[in-house]
Every structure is written in structure tokens, then in C-alpha cells.
């Protein structure tokens, strides 16, 4: 079979299974072997692997040029870990700042 640049099969259900817990990356990592899986396990420590970013980009249908995945992994890894660690008091009850509304008169 010829190699392809198209994304590998990754079901949306599986992709979203652990979203928000850091387990998303594990779900992706499970599709791969070797370095990606190893790096994924380090994501909670603020590291994100190039392979994970590449797969996220493929899932998003974004054609990343050579070298970009590495840049994005660096940009995203530690900030994501910091961001996900934020849990102010009362977080469970917080509504998102942008919610759907029906304009009066409709």
C-alpha cells in the first residue's frame, strides 16, 4: 500500500472520549506506537509530542508544513498543562462566558 499524507483513521468518539482530562492525548497515542505514546504520557508534565500535534492537525484537516508541529508542541504543551490545572472555587457551577441566547422579539 502506498503511503498517504491523509490523516489516519481516528473516530471522533474515541478522540473525544477523555477530553479535558489530558486523556485525549492518550487516546491519540493509542493509535500510534513508540515515541508518540511515550511523549503523550509526559503531556501532563507540560510536554506535548510532535506526533500528537501532527495527529491533532490531521484530525482538524490542517496541513502543517514541515517543522510546524514541533513549534506548536512547544507552544501548546506547558501552557495547556497550566491552563488545565486552573480550577477556581466554584468552577463546577460556572457557565461559559459565551452562551446561546434568543434575541427578544424573535
Amino acid at each position, binding site marked *: 500500500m502506498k503511503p498517504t499524507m491523509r490523516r489516519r483513521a481516528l473516530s471522533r468518539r474515541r478522540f473525544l472520549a477523555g477530553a479535558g482530562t489530558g486523556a485525549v492525548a492518550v487516546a491519540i497515542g493509542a493509535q500510534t506506537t513508540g515515541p508518540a505514546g511515550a511523549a503523550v504520557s509526559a503531556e501532563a508534565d507540560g510536554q506535548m509530542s510532535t506526533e500528537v500535534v501532527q495527529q491533532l492537525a490531521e*484530525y482538524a484537516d490542517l496541513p502543517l508544513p514541515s517543522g510546524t508541529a514541533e513549534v506548536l508542541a512547544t*507552544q501548546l504543551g506547558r501552557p495547556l498543562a497550566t491552563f488545565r490545572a486552573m480550577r477556581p472555587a466554584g468552577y463546577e457551577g460556572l*457557565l461559559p462566558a459565551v452562551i446561546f441566547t434568543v434575541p427578544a422579539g424573535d
Partner: protein
Amino acid sequence: MEELAFLSLREAGDRVRQRQVSPVELTAAVLARTSAFEPQVHAYITPLLDEAAAAARQAEREIMSGRYRGPLHGIPIALKDNYWTAGVRTTAGAKIFADFTPPENGTVVARLREAGAIFTGKCNMHELALGGTTVNPHYGTTHNPWGLDRIPGGSSGGSAAATAAGFCFAATGTDTTGSIRAPASYCNLTGLKPTFGRVSIYGIVPLSWSMDHAGPLTRTVEDAALFMNAIAGHDPKDPTSADVPVPDFTAGLDAPLRGLRLGVPRAYFFEPLDPEIGAAVETALGVLRDLGAEVEEVSFPSGAQALDIYPFVQRPEAASFQEDYIRTQPEDYGADVRPSVELGGIILAVDYLRGQRLRTAMRQELDALLSRVDALVTPSTRAVASPIGRPFTEVGGQPTSGTLINTGNTVAFNLTGSPALSVPCGFSSDGLPFGMQLAGRAWDEATLLRIGAAYQGATSWHEQHPRL
């Protein structure tokens, strides 16, 4: 001519109203400066010099025939190039929009035109408003009139440079993380980011729907108030526009500050900080005390997290708007902007929503804080404008980033939607300006304008103009 070009908008408007000067003379004054100095400053992507001259003649005819529209009538104003202008290309500083000519004016542009403003051109900006330097790979670099080797800030860098250089009397900007206030700080201008929903963003090329704000860059606080009177108010075309009462923003500008309580959140907002800016803000706080305000230390911990939160809101929204373009024309993006959009494309929805939930917490904390004080006072930026192509990597002896310097103090108020104003508050030893930020309660721009006007009444930083 130079004297005319550096009048405040209010002074120019007064002279037009009293028929001491005509719109044609005002426009000639700013166009003369544009012709002389635009090659050095490069404030514009699309100058509209002939159109401005024609509009000035039209305004003159209207005024002479008794059809005076108000303080902006016959006043030359520049537009950031993400504001839709009917029949005039609107690039948003992006190659992907190089040939985009809007079919209609955006709401702010329409309101300015209705007020009789004369448009001098479409200003350069950081590509797609996604950056703070206005070093634009497609349309060139805008230079700071206060130091041509320096950035004017961004993303509204062309608007700030044009106003500071005397190419216009005021300009429109947009502010998603600080893009009005940082350029105002770097170019010795007054910049107001109104409350989210106060000024329509209909007909403005979006960066981030829930964080984008439209507002003015002016020479004085009074000018900002006059500008707001023309552009503020509910717009049915914009679902984020709020149907709330709109005050006369010039009313109360001369009210005393006695009894006002100002909070100073030193933790994070003053560290790291250029020591010259720190000293100037302390002096400014002394001026505000002398004017009758009470100044107290406060804490705004979630504001310190804003830089960690905003990318998870702004980037996905940008990627959503850019979705088709980034897939089909990725090579048409600049080297710094493309990865930012791509990053937004791979952030999970659940993280985006976490960001939106954290904004709620931040707003609740700020609301509680602003029930005890009337406004917060911080430096607008952590340093002066950096050399073009050589961003600062440290401030006050501490390693830092351009993002922290430019937007570390501003972005929290984009996430909360609160109004925030930057006013000039000093110059560095090498002659570069910087500003002080005032942030306040939602829908209460008036208090910020009142504080800013009192401060400008007691100082003269805002009266300084660059020598080109």
C-alpha cells in the same frame, strides 16, 4: 500647517464650528504631513488622499450652507484596515483579503460618516490583528513616529502612528488583547477599549468574536469621549451589541475626583516592569491623589492568569473564522500568524469552553473588586516600544516575552469585557512614551474618562508630539 495638524480633535472641531478654519484647511494640513512623512512612517495600507480632499470640500459646502453635523464634521480621521469600507478594499493586513472590497460600510464607519468625518485612509495593522508589532509581511512595517527604529505596537499600529504623526486627528482601532491600548502607550496617545457590546463590531473583520472590541485612538481623553459619542450605541446588526443606555461621554469630564477610590493591583501587574515606567506610574498615582482620589492596594489574582487563559479562547475563534483560508491558502499567511491560527485549529472544544468558563470566574472576581473601588490603575505596557525586529527579552532585569510586555496588563479586561483606557504618563530617558491604564466597571466608561481627563488636566504628557 503643522500647528493645525496637531490640534486636538475637540479644538479642530471647535474651530470648524466657529468657521475659524475650514475642513479643507484641516485636511490640507494633515495631508501635507502625510505626503512628507508617510514614506518614513508607513502608517497606511491604502491612503485615501484624493478622496479625503474631495470629502473636505463637501464638508465645507455643508457647513457653509448651515448643515453642521457636530464635533466630527469635517475632521480627518483614519481607519484601521479591518473596518469595512464600501468600495474601498479592506485587507485586515492579510494577503488572503488583498482583494476584498466590502459591499457596505461597517457600523462604526457608517456612524463616523454620518457624523461628517473625513476618512484619510486605511491603516496598516498586524496581519489579521493577530500580533503586537505591525511588522506586516504583506504590506510593510509601520514605524513609530517617536523613534522610527521602533514598533508602534499593534495590532492597531498604523492607526496609532497616523494619529501621533499628525496624519489625522484620531483613528479607529480594534482591541482583542490590548491592540488599542498598547499602541496608544507606545505612541503617546489616548486609547479607549469600551465595554464589550458598547460599540458595534458589525463590519469589522473578526479575529475573536467574544474578545474583539472597537474603539478610538485619540490625542486626548476629551477627544475619545467625542469619538465615542459618534460611534457608541446598540446595533441590531451585531448580536454582541448591547441595548443599553448610552451616555453623553463628554458629560462629567470636568467633575472632580474627590471621593473616587482607585485600586492598584501591584502583584503581577507591576512585575516585571521597566523601572522608568514604574516610577512614572507612582508619580501619576500621586497626581491622582492630589486631585482628590483615594488610592489603595488591591489584589486581582485571576487577572494574573489572563495570559494563560486567553489563547484557548482567542485562537480557536480565530481558527474558526479562518477555517477555509488556512486550509486552502496556508502559504498566504505570514510566518508568525500562520502557526497561531493553526494552533487554534487543534485546541479541543472542551478547552475552549474551559476558557470561557474561567472568564466567568475572572469577571466575578473583578466585579467584586470593583464594588470596593471605582477603577484599577496599572501601567499599560511593561516596557517602551521595542526596536523593530528585536523584541525585548527582558524587562527590569527579568527575562520576559513580547506578549507579556505588550498585553500582560491589558488582556484581562478583554476577557472580562470591561472598559479600559490608556493615557500617556511619561517618557523614557531616551524619549519614548508610555501609558497608564485605567480599568473600570462594565458600562462605566464615563468614570474612566473622568479620571483620565482630570489627569490630563494636571499633566502635559499628551501635549507632546513627535518630531519627524
